[in-house]
Every structure is written in structure tokens, then in C-alpha cells.
């Protein structure tokens, strides 16, 4: 029987290519979703038509994570499963969100959007999803079936989109300034230390799926699991620090520009206004 989605099938591993039609349909659906989003945006109050290169880079990463060989290896190796997680939940979502078209500044966010994308909610939801999907009982129950594996992958993608949304689309929360966004990403790194440490420092393999999977030469279950835990900690740290760095540089650039504009405005204004502007800065 043909497999439509990668899962821990329990059959011996081979490097022979295998098709996963469910993955192709999913990737195609994401491409169609972007076209629909652009059309809707064009018909509404869109400010631009998005950045397709970013969106499709995210979709390409998803495809790489879900299809053969990485998707298939995720049924045999905890480290491949973790690499999949990093790509699906932590790397592809920000690229996809950056690529979405943006609306006009006057468009008001809906109440649902304000609540669902509240940073506290997205931070908690993401970490609950990460912890839940890495619990041995959940992984060992869901990974052996294609539907279960699909559910894990969808949860990761959904949680990742939710997590990155307020960072990259903060229009619904004006208080969520760049420094707070950086703190948000840092807090997430701290929270993710717990599952990463649990996986890295566990004395025994915690997932039956990977402990009992047909072995791939060169990978012992415990080494594979330690590598998976390190993947989680290092991978999230690299992506988070990269995002924090970009955010800091942009924030710094904007602040400098603002100060220069204020200084320019003060130079060109009459003396009484200039002294008032200088006074306001001193305050």
C-alpha cells in the first residue's frame, strides 16, 4: 500500500526514493492559498501584493521537511524528527508570514485576531504545543500512523505561524514594540530549554518509536536522542538570535532616523519652536 504521508512505518530503512502524494497536495495547497491571499488583498485594502520569494522559500522548507528523505527519516531517527520540527515550526513560518501581502494602515484588526495573536497567548500556545508534541506518549501514539504524523506536523505549523505572527505582524498590539518583541523571543528560548534538556540529558531513550525503530547503521538510539535534544536547543537559539539581531538593527536604524528627523525639524523651525523642541527632548 502506498504511503501518502511520512510516518514511523516500522519497515526497514532503505535509501530508495518513495513518493508521498499527501505532502505534494499539501504543498500545492499552500501555493494556491498564497495566490488566493494575493487576489483577496488586491480586491481589498492591500498595501502591497506580498513578497512571493519569502513565502515560497518558507513553503520550500516545509516541503523539504515533510517529503523524502527527511520526512521519511523522521520515522526512524529522533534527530530527523527534531530537524523536521525546527523547519516546520520555527523556520518556515516566519518566512511565510513575511511573504504575505499587507493591508492598508487604516484597516482595523478583528476582535478574534487581537485575541488569538496576543503575544502572551501565542507564546503560551506555542510552548504548550511544543511540550505536548514532544511528550513520549504523544509521539509514540501519533508517529506510527500517517494521520497521527500529519496531525503532529499540522500542530507544529499552526503553532509556529501563531508564534511568529505578533513578531512579524504586530499591528494588532501597539504596545508590542521591538524591545518587547526581542524579550518575547528570548523568553521563548528560555521556555524551550526545558524540553530540550529533557531530551538531551535523559539517561535512556524516551521514545519507544525511535528506540525500537529498524536501526540505521551508525546511529544508536541514545546518541540519536542526544543529538535531537541538541538540535532543538541549538536550532531554536540560532533562529531566535538571528531574528533578535535583525530586529535590534532595524529598531536602532529607525531610532537614529527618528532622532535625525527631529533634529532636522528643530534646525528648520523658528527659534521659539526650536527651543520648545529642545526642551521637550530634554524632558
Amino acid at each position, binding site marked *: 500500500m502506498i504511503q501518502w504521508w511520512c510516518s514511523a512505518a516500522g519497515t526497514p530503512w532503505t535509501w530508495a526514493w518513495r513518493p508521498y502524494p499527501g505532502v505534494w497536495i499539501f504543498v500545492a495547497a499552500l501555493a494556491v492559498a498564497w495566490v488566493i491571499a494575493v487576489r483577496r488583498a488586491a480586491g481589498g485594502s492591500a498595501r502591497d501584493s506580498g513578497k512571493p520569494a519569502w513565502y515560497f522559500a518558507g513553503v520550500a522548507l516545509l516541503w523539504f521537511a515533510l517529503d523524502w528523505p527527511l520526512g521519511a527519516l523522521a520515522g526512524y531517527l529522533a534527530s530527523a524528527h527534531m530537524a523536521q520540527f525546527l523547519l516546520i515550526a520555527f523556520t518556515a513560518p516566519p518566512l511565510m508570514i513575511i511573504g504575505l501581502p499587507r493591508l492598508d494602515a487604516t484597516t482595523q484588526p478583528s476582535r478574534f485576531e487581537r485575541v488569538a495573536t496576543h503575544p502572551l497567548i501565542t507564546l503560551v500556545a506555542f510552548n504548550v504545543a511544543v511540550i505536548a508534541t514532544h511528550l513520549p506518549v504523544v509521539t509514540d501514539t501519533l508517529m506510527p500512523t500517517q494521520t497521527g504524523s500529519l496531525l503532529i506536523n499540522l500542530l507544529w505549523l499552526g503553532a509556529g505561524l501563531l508564534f511568529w505572527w505578533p513578531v512579524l505582524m504586530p499591528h494588532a498590539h501597539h504596545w508590542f514594540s521591538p524591545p518587547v518583541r526581542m524579550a518575547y523571543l528570548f523568553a521563548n528560548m528560555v521556555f524551550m530549554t526545558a524540553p530540550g534538556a529533557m531530551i538531551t540529558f535523559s539517561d*535512556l531513550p524516551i521514545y519507544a518509536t525511535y528506540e525500537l525503530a529498524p536501526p540505521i547503521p551508525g546511529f544508536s538510539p541514545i546518541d540519536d536522542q542526544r543529538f535531537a535534544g541538541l538540535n532543538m536547543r541549538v536550532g531554536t537559539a540560532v533562529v531566535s538570535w538571528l531574528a533578535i539581531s535583525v530586529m535590534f538593527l532595524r529598531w536602532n536604524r529607525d531610532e537614529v532616523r527618528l532622532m535625525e528627523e527631529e533634529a532636522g525639524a528643530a534646525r528648520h523651525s523658528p527659534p521659539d519652536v526650536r527651543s520648545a523642541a529642545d526642551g521637550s527632548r530634554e524632558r
Partner: protein
Amino acid sequence: MDTTFRPHRNGAALIAAAAIMVGSVLAGCSRDTPPPGEFRGTPLERPLAKVDFALEDTDGRRFQFARGTRGMLTFLFFGYTNCPDVCPVHMSALGEVIDRLPFEARNRIAVVFVSTDPDRDSATRIREWLDSFGPSFIGLRGDIAEVNRIQEAYGLAPAGKGIDDGRGGYVVGHAAQILAFTPDGMARFAYPFGTRRDDWLHDIPKLLNP
């Protein structure tokens, strides 16, 4: 101010459905772990005594099973080195767990692997394969009819050869359980495929001192 395209509004329903599914899995599934003190192996219907068979070991000498393992906790497994799943998983688990035990305990344990594929499993091949799990593991080979007679004496299904593995070779059907003989020479438990390192670490000290 940064503004954006708004996605479909049924996201809340999707999130709720996902939460319910994860919640159900968490609530409904837990590993069946026997109470502390009990063995995690599968009890045999009746205890089995060691069958006194003799096969060739990887040094080319005759190995008398009952005599060679007397007084030791002995794990007996029938498998083959080209086995893609059950055999390497069992052997690597046993090897890693035995490595964690104190020296005195390790010295009282014997792992005996009997090949069910003597056509491909030469003595050298068996030795190389076993060395990747535990250099002290004992590898035995003999005529397949003789090996099957031994398996039948233990109530195990005889090995069956012939299923194409799709890679130019063949797979050998064989019993997937490991028989555990306590130092008194009797087997009371078998450990099927699915036995985890945690289970071995739980049971081996009890098997050493029943």
C-alpha cells in the same frame, strides 16, 4: 504602523480542535507499566529447563550450552545477522543495558545468539556483528535442521527462509523473543520484541537474584 492581510476567521475552531485532540491523546493513552516489583517480561506458561545442545561458536569450537552457561543469567536468542529490525534492536538494547551494570553483575550474564541463517552467517560474520553490540556475546551456528530442533524443544517456531527482501536478499522468519534463564538454569520469562532498555534495567537485577 504595520498592517496585514487577515487570514480566514475559522482559525479559532482549528486551534480548539487541535487542543481537544492533543488533550484526548494525553488523557487516554499511557504505557501499561506493571506495578513495581513485578517482572516486565512475559511469564512462560511453565518454566523451561536448559536444553543441553552443542553448536559451533565463533572460534570454531563446540559450545555446550547448558554447561557453558551454568550458574549464569543467560539470554538465549535465535536470529540472523542480516535481520533488519528485531535482531539488532534486541541485541543493541541488551548490549547497552549490560554495559551499565556493575562489573560483578556483568560477569554473571551470558548472551547467546544462535544463527537461524547459517548459509549467510559465517563464524566471522557473526563475530563482527556481535562485537558491535557486546564483545562478550556468544555466537553459535549449526545446521538449520539442528537449530530448528533446538527451537522446537523450547516451544519456539522454527526459522523459515525465503521471503524476498527487495534488495537482492531474503528475510528469515524467526522467533522474536529472548528467553531468560535465571542462574538456577530455568527460564520463566520471555522478552518479546518491544522490550525496552528501561524494562531490561528493571528486570535484570531481579533475574540475577530471583
